[in-house]
């Protein structure tokens, strides 16, 4: 492929690719992303490809492997065009049927269609499914259309036209103005106005500048950035190119988390192909923009998602944050002005430049514009990626899109924002999800993780989980973060193990406040949020642990006891045979009993008992 020498070349290539697409027959789109791959999509892809080959349909049916389609719960997902027929939970041996139905226009494999949980009827297309219908998929809209491994797919759907528009019509200053006007705020967690960051970096007096894409996503239960970078890396790259034009940068880096091998591979392929097409390198599309990107890999440290730690890591130093009295937009990478944005922030940029700041700012709320992708996980029926306008109430996300709780248990809380965020109880579900409202409620939007918890979750245990995570991931450089988190964990562990004392709760709050105020980086400053928010909304649970020595959710092992109800026990002997600790005794056909001193409270007996005779107290 020759280099694209100008804007005109790009437009011509786009047009010819589009006609080629229209001429092609049906397309079978299969999600090849990590979520679906875990449910076996690779076998499905191979089966579909060999089926198409063996039926000799290569000219008429195209199999496209794409990035995340969002509805990970129902994976592997297959979408057939024309007709947008949506198949879920597809197996490799369904391939023949799918290919067969595809060749006969208008036909679908009924049994693979999605079943509406409300009506029980089969839904044929993606847009009919409530999970998708209630979303506003803007950033993720292109994921089903694009095979991330081919730049031509992206150009065919209008990719890089925003860059062409910017290079042709906008001065760097006017790009910064447009982004400022759109009200875009950083999607990585901080919510800092992107336009202001860019303006400061542009104004910094230096000829050498850098842009960085932060793809070191590490929050438990969050995978928005991975899906974007895996599914549509060129969108991110295009955003970085526009950013480089606006700021005046010559070099960019994409810092990908070590644990995301395919995001790394796709980003690297994208960079190589963009270079080949003349979209990276000197004089991009014949303009004066000279910009190249390198893809770097993290080493597995959560703290490297923090901007200064990431920069240290890129420089080859130990990934630890540094004091931030001098901002990175003035002295960042190699002490040069640097603009660091999250994957999702970069991905928003081409859309804003293409469709205008006004289009962007009419979505969302006044202070938080645009859409945001959330990774909905936990005890909710429809887990997956959800993209909604900012300001959508939590209730809509969890109950309408998420489909409510699994298996009838009542939803108790939702944890937003990962380890830096907090838990919001169900009576706060009417809050609109935007940066300012959630911060006021003691949580945060963060990068967009949402873990739904039901009544079988102990909130003290949740706080303990996040503290353990943070204790492992704190860099340990500073006293309040290293020792403070350690002491908080010590107190919370005491509480979950029944050694809690009432005076420990105010101590916990005091300590949390100290850690928040005196820590250096955002990781430390937000570390107490899981504790503070659970203390604020679920204090009764803490008190039950301390005063009554009882875990209301039945999770904390030291505070629960299993016993057998002799009236219900049929003496079948199942529990006796499954107990790994030999704690159950009893004769056949006679009620059994658990020896509390030998019982390790694993709960296997309760799960196995068919007459529900094992009682948890």
């Amino acid at each position, binding site marked *: 492929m020759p280099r694209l020498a100008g804007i005109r070349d790009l437009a011509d290539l786009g047009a010819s690719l589009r006609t080629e697409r229209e001429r092609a027959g049906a397309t079978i789109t299969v999600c090849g992303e990590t979520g679906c791959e875990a449910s076996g999509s690779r076998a499905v892809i191979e089966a579909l490809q060999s089926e198409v080959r063996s039926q000799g349909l290569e000219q008429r049916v195209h199999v496209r492997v794409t990035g995340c389609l969002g509805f990970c719960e129902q994976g592997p997902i297959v979408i057939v065009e024309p007709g947008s027929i949506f198949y879920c939970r597809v197996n490799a041996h369904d391939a023949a049927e799918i290919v067969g139905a595809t060749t006969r226009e208008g036909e679908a494999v009924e049994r693979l269609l999605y079943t509406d949980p409300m009506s029980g009827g089969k839904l044929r297309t993606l847009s009919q499914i409530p999970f998708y219908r209630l979303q506003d998929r803007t950033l993720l809209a292109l994921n089903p259309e694009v095979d991330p491994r081919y730049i031509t797919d992206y150009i065919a759907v209008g990719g890089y036209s925003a860059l062409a528009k910017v290079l042709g019509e906008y001065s760097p200053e006017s790009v910064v103005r447009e982004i400022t006007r759109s009200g875009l705020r950083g999607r990585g967690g901080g919510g800092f106005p992107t336009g202001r960051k860019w303006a400061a970096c542009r104004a910094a007096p230096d000829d050498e500048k850098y842009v960085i894409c932060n793809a070191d996503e590490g929050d438990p239960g969050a995978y928005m950035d991975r899906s974007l970078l895996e599914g549509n890396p060129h969108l991110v790259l295009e955003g970085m190119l526009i950013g480089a034009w606006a700021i005046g940068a010559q070099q960019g880096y994409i810092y990908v988390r070590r644990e995301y091998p395919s995001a790394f591979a796709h980003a690297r392929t994208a960079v190589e192909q963009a270079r080949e097409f003349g979209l990276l390198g000197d004089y991009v599309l014949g303009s004066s923009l000279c910009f190249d990107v390198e893809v770097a890999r993290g080493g597995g440290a959560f703290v490297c998602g923090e901007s200064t730690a990431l920069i240290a890591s890129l420089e080859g130093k130990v990934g630890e944050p540094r004091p931030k009295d001098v901002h990175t937009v003035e002295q960042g990478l190699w002490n040069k002005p640097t603009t660091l944005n999250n994957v999702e922030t970069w991905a928003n940029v081409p859309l804003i430049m293409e469709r205008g700041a006004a289009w962007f700012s009419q979505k969302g709320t006044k202070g938080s514009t645009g859409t945001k992708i959330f990774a909905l996980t936990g005890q909710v029926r429809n887990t997956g990626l959800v993209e909604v306008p900012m300001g959508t109430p939590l209730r809509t996300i969890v109950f309408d899109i998420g489909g409510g709780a699994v298996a009838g248990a009542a939803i108790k809380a939702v944890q937003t924002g990962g380890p830096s965020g907090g838990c919001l109880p169900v009576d706060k579900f009417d809050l609109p999800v935007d940066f300012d409202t959630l911060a006021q409620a003691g949580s945060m939007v963060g990068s967009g993780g949402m873990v739904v918890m039901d009544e079988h979750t102990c909130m003290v245990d949740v706080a303990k989980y996040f503290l353990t995570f943070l204790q492992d991931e704190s860099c*340990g450089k500073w006293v309040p973060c290293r020792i403070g988190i350690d002491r908080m964990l010590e107190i919370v562990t005491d509480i979950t193990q029944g050694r809690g004392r009432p005076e420990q709760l105010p101590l916990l709050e005091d300590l949390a406040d100290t850690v928040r105020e*005196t820590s250096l980086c955002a990781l430390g400053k937000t570390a107490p949020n899981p504790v503070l928010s659970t203390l604020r909304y679920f204090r009764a649970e803490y008190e039950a642990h301390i005063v009554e020595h009882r875990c209301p959710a039945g999770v904390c092992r030291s505070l629960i006891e299993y016993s057998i109800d002799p009236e219900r026990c049929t003496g079948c002997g199942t529990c006796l045979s499954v107990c790994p600790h030999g704690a159950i005794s009893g004769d056949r056909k006679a009620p059994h009993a658990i020896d509390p001193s030998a019982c390790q409270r694993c709960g296997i007996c309760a799960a196995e008992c068919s007459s529900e005779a094992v009682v948890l107290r």
Partner: protein
Amino acid sequence: MQPHVSLTIDGALVRASRAKSVLDVALEYGICIPHLCHLPHISDLGACRLCIVEHVEDGRSKVTTSCTLGVQEGMVIRTNTDRIRALRRNIAELLVAEAPNSRAIQDIAVRCGVQRVRYPFRNKDCVLCGRCVRVCAEMWDARAIGFVGRGKDRRVDFPFGIRPSFCKQCQSCVQLCPMTMPPCDGPMEPGQERLCGKCEAQLLAAERAPDSCTWCELGVGFDCARYH
């Protein structure tokens, strides 16, 4: 660029040369800000976070360490507000609970007004202030010791745990270590750790945490920068 700037620390207008940190300037003017990991002539890390101050900017005050904060024209700094005193006391309490067997840390706890320790004592040998690591790297250009590990596993060690030939055994690291001077009553046995608190009489009786430097003996244990 002018070589000097003026800034306000605790209401006093002071003049300082541009390259200095707020902590240096405050100490120079006799304003006492407790500190542990800070050493003169060595780069600042901000690890102990005892030297926190309130930096008032556009009407909003931000808590930050004064050792890593460079002076700027027109800065407004408050070193001894109720808020700062409470935070500093909590940090000193964390430190003394971690390593009570050090005169320096006991002194700091007294100086910061710790009256009781609400956590179980741990009796560690190192609080990771990083004085040794920085003096080795910056004074002697040796880098014979460094930080190893992350989070709770972080410790100071030789490369791969073996003393390298470029360690000249100059003992600078030992001399500057705040853990080398035991408390006045001698080392505390495990299980016997306590807050010493004997030196309280050294502080002015009227105020528990003086804002002006009293040349107190409490600084001896940790090599207070005021003595340099």
